[in-house]
Every structure is written in structure tokens, then in C-alpha cells.
């Protein structure tokens, strides 16, 4: 449940060439989440759908069907004000100030203060641009701060519970009731506060060829600090294995260049056409982390569960794969790895940063045509510069696993000299290039001109179309689909680029007939 009362007041006035508008407001959000769980087991196979009569389930005991539930309230309160100013509609300036408060943070740190400024210059409004080829030219620049409060609720408050359970209680006497054991379930971090991102951006909008060609170029740079992460305490002797904190000094910088172009035109013969696209070049880097690695994605599969796949590493992007580098097989057909530190032992000290799950380039382009009732639309999209960890192959399709079984995959048996007893630990062997280009959408349609025909009395529109989605993907990735993100989150930190039994995208072709009466 989400409640959002919003109050604000605006005021506009103009003096000659100066135009002002000011706004001040207050917003309040209350998020109430709750859930309950019950279970009933052992439904007989029969005609009755269990949903219509849960009582036919044969097992309903408190031990095996323990009810569960949770409820939480988060509140967000913001005060904000904004002043817009423009001079002759040529020079534009905006000043924002917000104060955001969240119930998730400690009493001393509930509020974050986030100013921002932006400036704009409509160059085409200038006299000297009157005969220029530009139909539109605008320069923009801005600076601002925003806050992030994405942590679980109740982090500022400790929880100690007293329960009789197998992990908290113990018999203190030969007979009698078991004592309820009191333990810390959560350590409080009363000082946890807003993560702050400071963004600077510069952009240029332009229109050329009498508005046929439009586009924009944007550069941005966002630096986040006071990063909110769940980390493992240095001292292993702790009541709880992890705690949430603002990682001191650490910054994450995300910068990039975005270009967008769009061309539309038509000919006298009635051919209308357009094409365009956008591309973003991205760069991400973690700096001044006090840790060698803060894990963000863990492997799954039996025997693999405590291995890191990716994490936050200094001078690398987030989602960086941190793995032992597989170098092939030895004479016995067992895997070998690069001994990075040269100590003669292959261990986790030999893990290296081997690329990231974040693409360096994201792009999309499109085209459309319309001619005498025919219309054609095509859309491509893709990414490059990223890697994918094929956890599916690592956990299920390795030679040792398949050798004593009946199934196989070409990848598992690709190396004839690999021993059937070769273990498959997490390593770069299963790290693959994640670049792809997808024909996302292709649609061809024809609209009959019914109005000019006698039938137009009854049918005002008739259209035939065929639409294909995900028609092909160009990629070197040999898993199901390069667009993956199985959530392998550990410690509440998002994971990226790990393929674990991801369901592939469907390919569909839809034939349509539209009739309008």
C-alpha cells in the first residue's frame, strides 16, 4: 500500500524580459508492505482443484506447515522548492533544493539535503543565428545531488529474540522444558545514512535541415559516495555474519556519453521514411574501497555456493568478474589456472578482475517506411563490452558431472583429453563474451483504403500485419540467451551478468487482421 499526499504552491510572474516561476512543496509517502504464508501439503491427485477446497490436503501440521508473516512500514518525507528563471526565453536557469527524510535511517541521519542547479541557453534564439542551418540549438548544463535509501527496513534497530529452537536452545537438564535462547538476530547500525550521488551533465540539443534531422549529445558524470552495502565484519567473532553500513571513503563513478539522432523525411510521391538510433558509451569505476572485494554475485550449484563470481573491486567497474584464470588442462587432463602471485599454489589469491557484466556500449537503431498503405518498422538493439558468467554450464554441464550420467553437451566434451574426474570450480573457463545485437522487432502492415470503396459504408478500416519479435540474435554467447540476469544477489547487493538457468526470450511471429466498423 502506498500513500502519497502531495502539497505544493507555485507562483509565476514576469517583469519585462525576466520571467520567474517558483514552487515549494511537501510530499509524504507511506509504504505499507505485508505478507502472510500458510501451506498445506499432500493434495490427492483428483478432480478437485485444491484452490477450491484446501481442506482436501492431507498434511497440515504446525511443524511442517508453520505459518509465516511480515509487515513493514517505510515513510519518506520530502520538502522541496524550485525557482525557474528565464531571460528573453533565451537564457534559462533552475535552482532546486530538496530535503528528503526516510524512516530507514537513524534519528541523527534521517534527512539528506540535495541541491541542484541547471542552466540552459537557446542559441537559436540569438540574433546572430537567424540565418544558420540550425532549426534548434540548445546548450544545457547541470549539477545536482540525489540520495539513495535502498536498504532493508529496521537496520537502525537491534533485534534480539528469545526462542526455543534447534539453533538457539539446548537442554540444561536431563528433563524439563527447554530454555528459550536469547540471541541477537540483527546488529543495529544507528548511524546509517543516505548514500549521495553527485551528478554533473552537459548536453546539446540540435535540429538541422529544417527540422528533419534532430539529435542530442549528452555527457554525464555521477559520483556516488557513502555507498550503502552489506559487508562481512572484519572480526569473525560476531553475533551476526553481516551488517549494513555506509562504506567509508569508497566512491563509484559512472560517466558516459549519449548520442541520439533521428531523421524523418518524405518524398512527393508519398514515401515517408525515417531512421535513427541512439548509442551510449559508459564507464564505471569503483575507487577507494577498503576491501579487496565486496562480493555481489555468488555461484550456485552444489559445491559452488561459497565462491564469489563478481563484486566491487578498486579501479574496476561494479559487477567485475573476480575469478581464477583458467589456462587449460595439464597432462592428467586436470584444469590449470594462472598463478598470478607466483607462490606456486593456485588459490583465491590468484583471482583477477576479468571484465565486467556492465556493457561499455549500449545501442539501438530503428527505421520505418510508409508508402501507399504499406508500412514497415524495424528495431534493433544490442550491447557490447560486457561478459557473462555461464553458471548453468559450470553447475550442470561439466565433464565430471556428465561422465557418470547419460546426458551431455558439446561444450562438456569439447576437450578430449579432459579427465572425467576434473572438478569444475568457479573460474574464467565459464566466463563468456556477452555482446549481442538483436532484431528486436520487425513489423510489416498494409492498410486497405476502404473509405473510397463501396464497402467503406460498413468497414471503415481494414489492416493486415505481420510482426516478428526477437527474430534473430547475433552473439558468440552459447548459453540460452545473452540477455541474462539471474538474481544471484548476496548480502542484499545486486548481482549482474550471471546466467543460472535463465529462461530464454521467446521468438514470436504475430499475424494480425484489424477491422474497424
Amino acid at each position, binding site marked *: 500500500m502506498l500513500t502519497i499526499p502531495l502539497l505544493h504552491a507555485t507562483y509565476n510572474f514576469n517583469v519585462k524580459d525576466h520571467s520567474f516561476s517558483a514552487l515549494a512543496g511537501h510530499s509524504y509517502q507511506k509504504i505499507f508492505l505485508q505478507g502472510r504464508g500458510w501451506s498445506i501439503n499432500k493434495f490427492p491427485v483428483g478432480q478437485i482443484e485444491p484452490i477450491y477446497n484446501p481442506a482436501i490436503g492431507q498434511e497440515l501440521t504446525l511443524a511442517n506447515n508453520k505459518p509465516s508473516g511480515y509487515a513493514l512500514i517505510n515513510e519518506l518525507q520530502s520538502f522541496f522548492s524550485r525557482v525557474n528563471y528565464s531571460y528573453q526565453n533565451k537564457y534559462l536557469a533552475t535552482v532546486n533544493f530538496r530535503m528528503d527524510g526516510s524512516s530507514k535511517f537513524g534519528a541523527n541521519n534521517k534527512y539528506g539535503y540535495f541541491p541542484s542547479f541547471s542552466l540552459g541557453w537557446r542559441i537559436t534564439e540569438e540574433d546572430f543565428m537567424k540565418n544558420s542551418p540550425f532549426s534548434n540549438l540548445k546548450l544545457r548544463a547541470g549539477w545536482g545531488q540525489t540520495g539513495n535509501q535502498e536498504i532493508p527496513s*529496521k537496520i537502525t534497530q537491534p533485534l534480539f529474540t528469545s526462542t526455543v529452537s534447534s539453533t538457539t536452545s539446548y537442554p540444561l537438564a536431563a528433563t524439563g522444558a527447554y530454555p528459550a535462547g536469547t540471541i541477537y538476530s540483527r546488529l543495529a547500525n544507528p548511524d546509517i545514512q543516505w548514500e549521495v550521488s553527485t551528478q554533473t551533465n552537459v548536453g546539446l540539443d540540435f535540429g538541422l535541415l529544417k527540422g528533419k534531422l534532430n539529435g542530442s549529445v549528452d555527457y554525464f558524470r555521477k559520483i556516488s559516495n557513502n555507498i550503502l552495502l552489506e559487508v562481512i565484519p572484519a572480526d569473525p567473532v560476531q553475533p551476526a555474519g553481516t551488517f549494513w553500513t555506509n562504506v567509508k571513503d569508497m566512491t563509484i563513478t559512472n560517466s558516459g556519453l549519449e548520442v541520439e539522432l533521428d531523421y524523418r523525411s518524405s518524398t512527393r510521391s508519398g514515401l515517408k521514411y525515417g531512421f535513427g538510433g541512439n548509442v551510449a558509451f559508459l564507464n564505471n569505476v569503483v575507487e577507494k574501497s577498503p576491501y579487496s572485494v565486496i562480493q555481489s554475485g555468488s555461484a550456485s550449484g552444489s*559445491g559452488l555456493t561459497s565462491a564469489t563470481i563478481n563484486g566491487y573491486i578498486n579501479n574496476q567497474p561494479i559487477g567485475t568478474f573476480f575469478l581464477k584464470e583458467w589456462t587449460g588442462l595439464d597432462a592428467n587432463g586436470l584444469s590449470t589456472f594462472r598463478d598470478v602471485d607466483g607462490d606456486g599454489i593456485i*588459490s583465491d589469491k590468484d583471482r583477477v578482475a576479468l571484465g565486467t557484466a556492465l556493457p561499455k556500449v549500449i545501442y539501438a537503431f530503428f527505421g520505418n517506411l510508409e508508402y501507399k498503405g504499406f508500412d514497415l518498422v524495424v528495431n534493433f538493439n544490442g550491447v557490447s563490452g560486457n561478459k557473462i558468467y555461464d553458471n548453468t554450464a559450470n553447475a550442470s554441464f561439466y565433464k565430471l558431472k556428465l561422465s557418470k550420467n547419460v546426458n551431455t553437451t558439446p561444450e562438456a566434451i569439447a576437450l578430449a583429453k579432459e579427465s572425467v574426474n576434473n572438478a569444475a570450480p568457479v573460474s574464467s573457463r565459464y566466463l563468456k563474451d556477452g555482446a549481442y545485437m538483436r532484431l528486436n522487432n520487425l513489423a510489416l502492415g498494409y492498410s486497405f483504403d476502404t473509405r473510397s470503396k463501396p464497402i467503406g459504408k460498413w468497414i471503415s478500416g481494414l489492416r493486415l500485419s505481420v510482426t516478428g519479435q526477437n527474430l534473430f540474435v547475433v552473439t558468440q554467447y552459447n548459453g540460452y540467451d545473452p540477455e541474462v540476469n539471474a538474481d544471484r544477489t548476496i548480502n542484499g547487493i545486486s548481482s549482474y551478468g550471471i546466467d543460472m538457468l535463465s529462461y530464454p526470450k521467446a521468438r514470436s511471429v504475430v499475424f494480425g487482421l484489424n477491422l474497424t466498423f
Partner: protein
Amino acid sequence: MKNKIILLLATGVLTLTQSCTKLKETILDESSVTGLTEKQIADGTIAPVYAQLPNIFLHTNLFALQEISTDEAILPYRGGTDWGDNGIYLSLHRHQTTSTDPNVRNTWNFITQSLSRAVSAVSSLQSSKDPNAKLYIAEARGMYAFYNLLALDLWGVIFVKEDPGQVSKIVRGTEAVEYLKKVLLEVEPQLDNTTGPGRLTKAAVWGLLAKLHLNAAVYNDRYAASFTFKPEDMDKVVEYTGKIISSNVYALSPDYWAIFNDNNHDNKEHIFAVDQRADLNGHNRMAYFSLSGDQFPLPAYTGANGTDGPAITPDFYRSWVNAYTPTDPAQADPRFYKKNVVVDPVTQEACYDAASYRIDRGILRGQQYGLQRVNGVFLKCPDGKFKVGKIYNVTRSRPTTPVVHTEQVDFTTAGSDYSTGFRVEKYEFSQKSVSGRNFGEADISIIRLADVYLMRAEAKLRKGDAAGALTDVNAVRTSRSATGVGRSLSSIDLDGLFRERGFELYWEMHRRTDMVRFGKYEGVWTEKNDADKNKRVFPIPQTAIDGASNLPGYLKQNPGY
């Protein structure tokens, strides 16, 4: 105009100060405990200190680390479907365990969490007015030493943390040994001797002190080419084991198997044990782990079976055969095997009452017999009793392959089949275990009297008193009068004593420690030829190393990992 702007901003500020909410976090679904009595608080503080013992003494945790790494147990990738776990059990046996091994991490986590609970208990019980508070403080501090002793043995480190607010000091080697001695000696006078075996008693601390002195040579100089057992340490072992033996509170069990039965809590052999209760914390993993997946030991539960986990290595089996040849070990030593299921030699079948039916115990060889499960129910004889006969690999979809445990077990495809290897059923399969995994009843031994006698024998032997050592070894060998008296030995040396510890204490989570102390851990046995001394301790889990990387030099990985 200007006035209006100011007015507007002023309204803004006014709203700021009159916040509509204080943003105080409302907690709806949990509450921290309040309103407990002094006794409830004291009991509730000491119980969690012990509570993770069943999880530490678990088949995949301490058991795997202490046994599968040795010649006593091997766990192949059964049939290509079971216990594969990406090769972690193969690596463990070959001494190629890495710092990301999940079982090493889980054991570490349970031990460090228990340490933390012990430190918190010592601190919070200081202000308690409960009459038991003083005893509980001594127990919590003693358990702090016990968990640290486990960490010292497994990873070569202890955590010195005298106060919950302090960051643990990581200590290794002699300093660690001396610190643990000091703590154990401090708590010993405060402890009771009537609260065992499930809780830490005076005698349990004597046992821990004996263990600490016996292994001090190893703990002081872990990677030594050969260990130097100081006479004064051996004297301490003799002193502390002597205190236990002469207390006359404990007795060697005439029935060897009774030590491991469901109702073993009152068996006088136990000095310190994990107190398991079926209705609270008990697991049946010790009995379940090695047993065939087609062995259903309980007439009451058709879902309770084994799992075809580890077997003993042929090398360990040969140590029994070589000791007693030409007599079969089952005839020669009451600790090797106990036959419970007797079938007709011709029909290979028998009929049993539900109440009196028990499966065989000890080391299981050859064709296995058991209840006949067909379509989810057990077959019965015409007289209504339960039918018992040869069992087959039905649950493995090989209904015509009988469950025949062979001596050969290794990592080849043939040696990794479901039934390969001789199995161990030392603990009784809990009569209450509905799933075969849960509801364990038997206490799991940590220190028992036979171990105490054998520790004293070893200390005497290391000091050159072979006659005294022989007396202690034979005291144990001849004590099992209810299950067939074992033969006395006429002489004893260190190899003989090591073998004797294997015969008496097999699969009781001592083997790795014993092999290291007797200099045999770098030896060669089935599927194992690694001779790296660095493997005498396990790697510190990578999660802990990475977690501590913000304090450079604080938690260093062990050499060789």
C-alpha cells in the same frame, strides 16, 4: 513583487519545521524480548552458547573435515548423481580443499558464531542475580576455550576476545596454546561435576586440558618435520586423564554399542557430548550418512533411509585384517561389527516384530539385509511381522542390483558406484527419525572414557613407559564384556597405539587430529598421495579473508592456500 517571493520561501521554511511526520520507524512484526525473569534470562543466555553443537558436529561439517580428509573415510561421486558437489569431497580426501569450500566455511561460521555467543554470555551474565549465574559464566568461558580449541586444531588460529565490544585478537602457535591453558585452568574450579555430559563439567575441562597438552607439540610447531612431545606436557596429560579416571564417576561401557545408542545420555562412558533431543535439536546424520539409500531401518517410517555417503577406505579395513589375520575382524574384535539381523540361510529371509527389529551395527560388509519396501510400503510375513531379506538398489532405479558393499571404493566409475565400500553404522539409527535425517536422539561423543585411557597410554608411551601404556590399552580392549571380550595385546608401540585409536574411536571425528599428531597425515592411501605439510590445517574461508581485507594484515590466510 519581491515581497511575495520572500513570503513564499518563508512558508517553505515554516513547513520544514512543522514536519508532518517524525519518520520514526514503526516495527510491526518483531519485538525484542522484555519481561523475563532472572532465571529465564540466565538460562536463555547460556543455552545459545551450546546450541550450535549439533550443527558443528554434523556430517558435512566437523565430521567431513575430520574424517573424509583421512584414511578412515572416502566419499566418491556416487553413481554420478549423488554427493558430487562439484568435487569438494574428492578434493577434501585428496587434501586439495580450497578457501571457497562451503563445508569449511559453514564449520567456521558455526564455530565463530558460538564463540561470539560465549563472549556475550560471559559479559551479560556478570550482572545477573540468578543463583546459577556464576556457574554459567564459568561454562560460557570454558566453551569459549573449547570452540577456540576446535579453531586451533582446524585452522591454527584462536580468537582472543575478552569483551564483546573488542575486536578479536588473532593468535597462533604457542601463544594460543598457553592462552587456552590459562582460560581452562581459570574456569575449572568454578565448574560443577553433575551437569554432564551435555554441558561442560570439571571432568570435561580435564579432558580438554589433556587433549591440549597431548597435541601441544603439534599446535606449537604445526609444520615441523617431526613433533617434539615435551615430557612436562605428557606428565600433564597423565595428570588430567588420571583425575578423570580416579574420580570414579565414569566407567567403560561393557556394551560397546550402548555408547552410541539412542538412550546413551546416561551411559557412564560419556564425559562430554552433544546432548541431542529428538524434540529439540537432534539430527540423525551420523547414522544416516554412510548407510545405503535402500536401507530402511525403521518399520515405523517408510521414508527413513540412508544416503550412500562415505565408506571406509580399503587401507583402514586392511588395518583390521592385518591386526587379526587369520581371524575375521568381526570375530576378533567386538568393536568391529554387531550382527542384529539374522536371516534363514536358505531363503535369505526372516520375519521381525516392529519393536525388536534393529539393523546391524559397526562396519557393514557384503550383501545387506533389510525391510522390503515395495510401492512405498514394507512387505509383511503371513504372521503379520515385517519381512526382512536381501535389499536391492531400488531407489537408484536398479532394482536387480543387490546392495553388496565391496572392499573396493575409489574415484573410478566402478569404485564410485552406489554400493561400493564398507560402511559404518556406529550410532543407532534414531527410532524417532521420520525422514532418516531429522529427530536424532543419541548424544554425540566429544570426550569419552576410552579416549581418556588411550590419551594416557599415549602420554606414557611417549615418555617411554610402554608397560603402563599397555595396561591402559588393555583396560579398554577387555572392558566390552557384554559384546564379546577383546583380546589383550602383549606389547604396544606408537604405530600400535595409533591403530588402537582407530579401532576404538573410528568415525568419532578424531582421525585427522590423530593422523597429524602421529605424523601420518602426509601418507599415501586410497586416492590420496598429497604430502604437503601445509594441509595440516584447513584454509581460512575466503569470505572471512575478504571481509577482513579492510584491516590489512589482520586475518592472514594459512600458508599453502
